[in-house]
């Protein structure tokens, strides 16, 4: 089997995550789709680490995971804060910056 197959899977997952970010209205589900995209990128990095024979791809994937975790922490805290004031978790309701 071609080790590049993992890359195709990662590409598909990334696409699905991209659709999800735009289509879903619940803020938390949107966030989860972003996490899916990050994971797809991680899979790509690990696959390339294997193909290139160095561990640098894995180190980068590790860093990506840490950053994603931080991002989740802060992002969810923001969602909670918005929920507290607006009583709604839909991102369409936070549209005050329109023209």
């Amino acid at each position, binding site marked *: 089997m071609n080790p590049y197959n993992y890359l195709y899977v990662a590409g598909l997952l990334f696409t699905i995550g991209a659709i999800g970010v*735009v289509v879903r209205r619940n803020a938390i589900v949107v966030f989860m789709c972003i996490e899916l995209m990050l994971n797809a990128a991680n899979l790509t990095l690990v696959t390339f680490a294997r193909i290139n024979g160095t561990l640098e791809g894995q180190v980068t994937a590790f860093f990506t995971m840490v950053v994603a975790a931080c991002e989740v922490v802060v992002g*969810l805290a923001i969602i909670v804060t918005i929920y507290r004031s607006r009583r709604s978790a839909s991102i369409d309701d936070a549209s005050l910056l329109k023209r």
Partner: protein
Amino acid sequence: MLTIQTPETILFWVLAPLSVLAALGMLLVKKAVHSALLLAFVMITLAIFYIAQDALFLGIVQIVVYTGAVMMLFLFILMLVGVDASDSLTETIRGLRPIAITAAIGFGGLMISLIARAKLGHGAFGLAEANKDGNVQGLAKLLFSDYVFPFEVISALLITAALGAMVLAHHQRTSAKPTQREQSIARFRQGTLGTAAGLPSPGVFARHNAVDVPALLPDGTPAPNSISATLKARGDILETSQFELGEVDKTVKEEK
């Protein structure tokens, strides 16, 4: 040079379609909790992929950190925000859905054809050489020599993120906390005195004080307000009649 063995091939061809389907499912289901669980499934499959690709440390970290911590965090927030929340299927912004789907499919198609076209100039090496001291040792060697600066910066980022979450979640009282006396006065100043003394807590005293047994009102009928709405919705309220006493012996025995 890397040759992929048959077990890995089978692993791949079983789990890859599953993960894609799970991702699609995460996209399409209505309830947010179901999305979260499907995402957890995808993450576990990815962890298995990492392990299959000789990224042992990363695979375990994926399960422990991502699936274990991050997804659980998602579920906690979902519970805080409302597990019942479900998106309606109709789209409020005109034309967004077709545009998004077209763009994403175009994106995916282009990416896949790019990957198919790309030539690295060498075959796949595999990680047998890099992992010869063990995957963890290999990662540590890289992490603490070439990548020590990003490592330190990311640890600072973690601390910042934790602080940020604390700041955001901090609830500053804008007015003084009402004391017991004030709360009591407020209760008695309401329109009716029905709840002036507070709602009854669940449970029939002396026989059962569980949360799923309603309290009894003075005339002996059960008070539905004393049971949480979730249990009520699930129909988990127990009948109080089974806890009622039979005839009470009303004779008074003299004590000598």
